[in-house]
């Protein structure tokens, strides 16, 4: 929901079958994990997704898998060549 629109605890609770207290508690956990960030807006706090944290994690794993799969492909093709050579009559 926060991915669509930054919201306050009250706005989230209005759209959910749970109490504002439960929403608030849940947001606290997410905030501690760096998944959402809060900024004060008058008397309320507006929560939004911490896209930087999520994006950073995603980007990091993207890099690992890009590198790893490229390395696998390269090494597997060398291995395939070796199998082919083994099959050739000497």
């Amino acid at each position, binding site marked *: *929901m*926060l*991915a669509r629109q930054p919201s306050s605890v009250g706005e*989230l609770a209005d759209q*959910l079958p749970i109490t504002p207290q439960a929403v608030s508690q*849940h947001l606290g*956990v*997410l905030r*501690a*994990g*760096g*998944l*959402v960030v809060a900024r004060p807006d008058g008397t309320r706090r507006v929560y939004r*997704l911490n896209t930087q*944290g*999520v994006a*950073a*994690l*995603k980007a*990091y*794993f*993207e890099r*690992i*898998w*890009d*590198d*790893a*799969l*490229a*390395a*696998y*492909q*390269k*090494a*597997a*093709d060398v*291995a*395939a060549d070796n*199998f082919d050579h083994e099959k050739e009559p000497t």
Partner: protein
Amino acid sequence: MSSAPTVPTMTGTATVALDVDRAFGFFTEFFGSWWPTDYHIGQTEMADAVLEPREGGRWYERGVDGTECDWGRVLVWEPPHRFVVTWQISGRWQYDDDPKHASEIEGPLQRRPSGGTLVELEHRHLDRLLDGEPFAPPSKKVAAVGAPSCKPSPALPRAPA
């Protein structure tokens, strides 16, 4: 609202000339021969990485000094078409033994009609690696952090207690 916002599932593909049996064997049993050695958590250079070819098998790296650092476990072992392993290196780049904090990697392999094999990896439940902890990307390589969960190789003599 689910329990946590989902970090998007990562996908990646590789196309290789090996047939599906060999492609599976090369990916798993020869894992250490192709995995980029920059990506590891031990404090010493990585000498090898091992994916034990069975359900419940360990997935770990071995450092040049014989230290072994766990990465995850084998959940599903269905050669030559499918395997699922856990990646349990947390957002703090340490092995986390709690299965609830485990992300999963599924590797389906398919024979291509035109020859060779298509590997389509999926890395999911990445949000479990955070579990309330802030994500702290390593400055350069995973290796920079070190992992207290690493243990001396069982094959090496231990210092007396």
